[in-house]
């Protein structure tokens, strides 16, 4: 997976130098780091949190945390992975505080359809909806389903990272992703609106 397409354009060497300067207290380096990564983190938050203002606040708070925790960053790992980890934890905490989650792993497992989806229907769905519509549909998903899709297909997180962030077993991540895809298909096609709203009302609170 290539995270660079959603975040920063700095080379590894430049990034390492900027990070060491930030650690040494260089304000200009901090500004450079922020300018490189803040837009992507804002977009990430924008896809997870309900309002634009929430995403703005969250971006600021995430970078404050980043600055505080930079000493704990292990430079042998990709910086973007660590950054997304901090951001996703922050957003997930925010959502948890706002909502009382009641969905259980087993409940999700039971609801997975066994039949093959109709590939032609899937293709039609993809052709008929713009990116903006997809993101609108995404915003209507339960928190955990939305988190799973964004972590995987925007932040390009591994299954282990997603499991760690969402506090689920690794084996459950695939189930979560597939179920989220189904919910998104329902949201976009409108066919499963009733069930979907039920899941939203119960699962997302």
């Amino acid at each position: 997976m290539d995270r660079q397409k959603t975040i920063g354009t700095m080379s590894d060497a430049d990034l390492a130098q900027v990070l060491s300067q930030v650690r040494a207290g260089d304000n200009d380096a901090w500004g450079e780091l922020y300018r490189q990564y803040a837009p992507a983190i804002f977009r990430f938050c924008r896809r997870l949190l309900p309002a634009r203002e929430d995403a703005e606040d969250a971006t600021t708070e995430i970078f404050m945390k980043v600055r505080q925790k930079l000493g704990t960053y292990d430079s042998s790992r990709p910086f973007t992975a660590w950054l997304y980890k901090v951001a996703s934890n922050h957003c997930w905490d925010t959502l948890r505080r706002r909502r009382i989650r009641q969905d259980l792993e087993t409940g999700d497992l039971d609801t997975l359809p066994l039949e093959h989806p109709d590939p032609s229907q899937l293709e039609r769905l993809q052709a008929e909806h713009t990116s903006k519509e997809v993101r609108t549909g995404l915003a209507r998903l339960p928190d955990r389903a939305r988190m799973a899709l964004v972590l995987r297909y925007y932040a390009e997180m591994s299954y282990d990272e997603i499991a760690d962030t969402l506090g689920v077993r690794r084996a459950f991540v695939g189930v979560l992703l597939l179920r989220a895809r189904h919910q998104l298909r329902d949201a976009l096609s409108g066919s499963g609106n009733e069930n979907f709203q039920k899941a939203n009302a119960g699962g997302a609170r």
Partner: protein
Amino acid sequence: MNRSDGHFDEMTGLLYLEGQLDAGHASEVSAHLGSCAACSELLHALETEGVWLREALTVDDESIPASVVAAPERGAAHWGWIAAFGLGLGGAYTLWSGFVEPSLAQASSAGFTQGNLLTTLFFTGAFWKGWDAMRSLMEFMAMATLGTVAIWLLRKQLQRFTAIAFVAGALASALMIPQPVAAADMERGDPAYTLPAGQEVKTDLIVVANRAQIDGDVDGDLIVMSQYVTVNGHVKGDILGFGQEIRVNGPVDGNVRAWCQTITLNSAVAKNVMVWSQVVELDTKATVGGTATIGTQVAQLNGQIEGDVLGGGQVVGIDGTMGHDVTIRADRLNIGPTAEIKGQTKYVGGKAPEISSGAKLASPPIVSTVKRGPDYSQGAYYWHQVMFWGASFLLGLAILLVAPGFFFDIEQACKKMGPAVGFGALFLFATPIAAIIICATIVGLSVGIPLLLLYAISVYAAHIFIAAWLGEKLIGAGVGVGPAIARLALGLLILRGLGMLPYLGPVVGLLVAMWGMGALVLALHRKISPPSAVAA
């Protein structure tokens, strides 16, 4: 394959695409794909869907706000924290200047020579004698500070109910420890208990009975919980009484502390008297060597009190000898013809005091008459409202910072107004009754008293959560602590304003107390009960 029809299912297809299958399983799927058009088609559709999702999520068709583009300055504190700090300081100041300092000054003027009001109330009496070593307010404050720091350090764990239960348990245990039960003679009357004349209990005596008669002597403290209590013997320690009617006819070498409906003192009490009772009667034969602190509906003081008198109630009558200052806050004060007050008399009340011409007063009384209910024309009234707001804000801030998750959970529970008000009404009235019933046993006392304390804190804190909810309604739900503080401040301001309305204010107060308490109960319930599965 995972399915009986020879094809693999969608889950297997997704895991295969995402490289999550083990090598054996993956090669099995690969082999199947070579011969199965349906599965190949499915896999292709899933793969395309993945690409489609990535494109939809990564496309940049929304501008980046200016606040995100500009890097935050180094060390720049969030505005919410600055506001919180300022408001917190204001709250602390108003709390101190409005409540603590005047209380201390009043206690000092009433002659509490052993220390201050807190010390006198909590650490000197028989009930708290285990805390004798910790007499000063400074020590208490130091402990409170340490406790706050500990809670702050454990704040993440505190968000888990088990930790809350642990802390609550520790608090209950801490309250249990000081009780001097171990070295006491415990008696349970069925239904009555009598200590016969001529007998002497060498240790403390604890009595729980329907009717208690103490004709013999008690060498230590007498702790009695009974409907009718009569003490004719000599008590060499303190008397701590809970009951309907308490009558003390024998000498007491220590203090008398009582919570009851009627108390009559006919004998000599060597130290202090502190009573909360509907009716208090100090007979002409009675003498009190120390001070008297009385909260009552009707009090008649005909005996002799050497120290200062601090009293509050509806009607207070004095016809005895008061050795020092007398401070009374009541609706009416009658000073009879045989009364003698050797110190300064201060009276704050609804009606002018009636002072008999035969009464001997060392100096002219200082009298302030006050109107019942709020006086909207006085600046002090509005200043008090600011102080109340400050106190509420300070507590809300403390809860928000120590347990933000729990605070937000309660705020969310406020949205369910119907169930919250229903549960709140139930718990608001049922909890004190249950606590008093629990207190009816000596063993239950250690549970009942913390329960009452928690109840009092909950009732007071209830309006804070409603204020947070109200603030969210008005200015929206921004993320983080900063906006939450702003919501809290605004909500409290509005609730305080509503509370000031004549007639409507108390109704709003009751509704808010029920609503907030119900939300607290609902949030606690959700924390305790396991989450339920959701149907898709």
